[in-house]
């Protein structure tokens, strides 16, 4: 019989969305017991790597309408327009709230007020920044502020494995493994929020942290919740070689040039007005065209690449505003960006898709919300604008934290506590201990993982073909069903071999969904560019894709569609 830990609200994931949700829930009522459960130590989540900015309308000559329009245009009109409106209306408050909690925003020299910079796809320089370590500072501010609340408890290095429901399909907790001891434990709670971030590690060349695997998405998917718009994977124009570490879009926002092997600023061909500051999908496609047509450089790692040139910005500006990436360039590429241009290539960076939620971040399950990159509330549609992601985490962290708190308070007052379905716990134990921990197979899971991520890199990249996607899907399915699922490390304590194999298991299911949904969308929209269908097709595909788990890895996912919400922005062709 596994032990049970009781909380009012459990938050799974400790990035910007998770910590913001914790504070929001904790300040709703200090009698609520809140657990933040993280598979890493709480302040280590991948949000720390966000670099460039958080978009918000805070200057007098900027306006909300413009931010909403830019977001919807950036989304290639697949954003739910009411959701984009809410993002834009709520984010200014978050910027000031962080300022009050100690965030070291970069400030204007003349009056000490919060400064902003240009970012891609915007018609106003509205990316609020703190040098080029925005995510790191936001995380630090939120982490430290969490410490003020005695009712927020951190569970460092607890790996959640499954969502538990009660008989009438209400959320009632999760199962988790305490990594330090290896104990398998149940958390029982009135409400839950999934904030486990994106899953970009299903690609090899990726800006994501090693920990950004789809465990959270997969947990929801296995519990019967839909994943929405998973075909839309954002490739950021500037990842350095060979590691894929990000050079912030702020580098172009501050005036950096992208150049090909002829020394041309080639973006003038693809986005004559905005050039390097077009939206990311447009810039990445421009770059891949240049590479296909032979105007790239050969990197030492062997792949083709282009360069970003920042040398004309001058040491002072680079040091003050881009010091972090200068450090990264020197350390991880051996190049000082203040002195020479640096090799870059489009790199997997963000997943527009995620757990299907409504405008409030509520999932299809009572008592369960989702926020941040793990969720797909359809703010970003088919392509997210830079600096809108940290914004989304903050806004829906706050919203879901508050709603989950109110829901938990209401259930507490009615003494409504549903009991855990023991059969679910037994099934989950079977799945992970019999199926994985004591699993068998000749293949090395780590090699299988590399094959999976390489397949995603080559078959579901910036430009996609039907044949490539179909072949990728077949390969992923064959691999998924091959004999690899086993753990060599038999210890209970801090068994990351076990954790890794569970992560790989979840990567397969999510990769399958990405490929399948991409195959189903016969058009080019935002980050999803199909060679055979080069145009956007509003008549047939102005809709969100949904994917449901088929019940076992032997069955194909079930797919469906749902409509896009419009307010008053009419779809038009995008030009930058």
């Amino acid at each position, binding site marked *: 019989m596994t032990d049970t830990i009781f909380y009012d609200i459990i938050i799974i994931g400790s990035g910007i969305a998770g910590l913001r949700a914790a504070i929001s829930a904790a300040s709703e009522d200090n009698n609520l017991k809140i657990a933040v459960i993280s598979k890493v130590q709480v302040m280590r989540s991948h949000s720390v790597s966000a670099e460039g900015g958080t978009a918000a309308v805070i200057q007098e000559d900027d306006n909300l309408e413009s931010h909403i329009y830019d977001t919807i245009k950036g989304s290639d009109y697949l954003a739910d327009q009411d959701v984009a409106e809410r993002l834009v209306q709520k984010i200014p408050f978050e910027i000031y709230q962080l300022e009050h909690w*100690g965030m070291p925003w970069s400030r204007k020299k003349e009056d000490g007020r919060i400064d902003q910079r240009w970012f891609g796809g915007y018609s106003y320089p509205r990316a609020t920044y703190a040098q080029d*370590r925005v995510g790191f500072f936001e995380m630090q501010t939120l982490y430290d502020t969490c410490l003020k609340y005695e009712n927020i408890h951190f569970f460092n290095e607890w790996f959640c494995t499954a969502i538990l429901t009660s008989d009438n399909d209400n959320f009632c907790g999760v199962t988790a493994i305490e990594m330090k001891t290896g104990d398998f434990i149940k958390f029982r709670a009135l409400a839950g929020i999934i904030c486990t971030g994106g899953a970009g590690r299903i690609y090899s060349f990726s800006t994501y942290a090693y920990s950004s695997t789809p465990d959270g998405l997969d947990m929801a998917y296995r519990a019967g919740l839909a994943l929405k718009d998973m075909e839309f994977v954002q490739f950021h124009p500037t990842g350095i070689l060979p590691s894929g570490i990000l050079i912030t879009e702020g580098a172009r926002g501050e005036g950096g040039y992208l150049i090909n092997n002829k020394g041309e600023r080639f973006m003038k061909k693809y986005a004559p007005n905005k050039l390097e500051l077009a939206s990311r999908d447009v810039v990445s496609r421009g770059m891949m065209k240049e590479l296909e047509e032979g105007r790239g450089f050969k990197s030492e790692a062997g792949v083709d690449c282009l360069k970003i040139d920042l040398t004309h910005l001058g040491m002072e500006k680079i040091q003050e505003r881009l010091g972090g990436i200068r450090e990264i360039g020197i350390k991880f590429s051996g190049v000082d960006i203040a002195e020479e241009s640096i090799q870059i290539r489009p790199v997997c960076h963000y997943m527009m898709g995620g757990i299907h939620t409504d405008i409030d971040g509520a999932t299809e399950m009572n008592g369960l919300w989702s926020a941040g990159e793990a969720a797909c509330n359809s703010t970003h549609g088919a392509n997210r604008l830079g600096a809108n992601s940290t914004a989304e985490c903050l806004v829906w962290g706050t919203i879901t934290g508050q709603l989950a708190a109110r829901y938990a308070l209401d259930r507490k007052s009615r003494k409504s506590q549903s009991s855990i379905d023991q059969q679910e716990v037994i099934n989950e134990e079977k799945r992970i201990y019999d199926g994985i921990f004591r699993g068998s197979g000749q293949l090395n899971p780590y090699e299988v993982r590399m094959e999976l991520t390489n397949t995603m890199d080559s078959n579901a990249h910036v430009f996609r073909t039907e044949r490539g996607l179909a072949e990728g899907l077949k390969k992923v399915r064959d691999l998924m069903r091959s004999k690899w699922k086993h753990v060599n490390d038999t210890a209970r304590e801090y068994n990351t071999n076990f954790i890794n194999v569970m992560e790989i298991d979840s990567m397969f299911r999510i990769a399958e969904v990405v490929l399948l949904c991409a195959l189903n969308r016969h058009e080019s929209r935002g980050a999803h560019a199909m060679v055979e269908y080069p145009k956007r097709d509003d008549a047939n595909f102005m809709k969100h894709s949904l994917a449901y788990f088929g019940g076992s890895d032997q069955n194909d996912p079930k797919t469906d569609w749902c409509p896009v919400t419009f307010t008053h922005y009419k779809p038009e062709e995008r030009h930058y």
Partner: protein
Amino acid sequence: MANNIIVKLKRLNRRRESERGENTSDGNINKNHDSNDKPKQNKKGKLRDKIVLKVFRINYTKDKSHYYDEFEIPLQKSTTVLDALIYAKSYLDNSIAIRYSCRMASCGSCGMRINGIPRLACYTNLSEFEEEDTITCDPLANFPHIRDLVTDFTQFYDHHKQMKPYIHNENADVSNTRQSPLSEFGQSHEDVEKYLQFSYCIKCGLCYSACPTVATDTKFPGPQALSQAYRYYIDTRDVMDRDRLKIIDDRHGIWRCHFAGSCSKVCPKGVDPALGIQLLRDQMFSFSKHEKKIARELGRMNR
């Protein structure tokens, strides 16, 4: 007196910089032009294509004794210690316990002692070790072991929390104030400069591992926590003022630090915790209950 110490400290810092051939005046960047060059030649003059990684192994709950395993790692020009460990874990021994995440020196997970010195594995390029054929990885000192290179940070986090590391101000929660929720405190460039370098702390624990005082007194908050106490004390938005300093004016508090300076030497983000501690002390001389007593004790010890 305090000013003298700061001058000395700064001199010490400069000397360390010049010893390491590093240039921190332009923003604390550890320049290392060696990294990412071609594979290194070893002392015998041959091009190196592999290196031996010696890894500390322990499972504390099973057996309190430890041993080392050696792994041969193929070397590429940009291989970091973290890459090497992940290679070993993936292909040579799946049971190695390591903690890592961002691989870009932002998250602070992969602190360990590499050839004896506390460093981040992701931020240490193997090409730096021209002379050695073997690189040894040990867990951070001053932290209890969990398994292999993974240590327990509970006490370290508790020390940080004890500093009340958040802005104390009745207007801190925007929605609870009478001000417009869309107003800011505002800070001048100079205001920000006072705390900025201390806010680069990623809580990786390297300074804590290097600190000789922590090694002898686990109640001592350590350089990370103390520098964060200063970071919030000096922030113009914070009004806790002297109450913040009282937290650390304790027998086991700030006065235990005897300026070994090793904390500042190992920080991967260019934070100078020793300077933070010094600046904090400056603020405390006027009212501390413990300063004289502890200074006397330490004076005796050092004699």
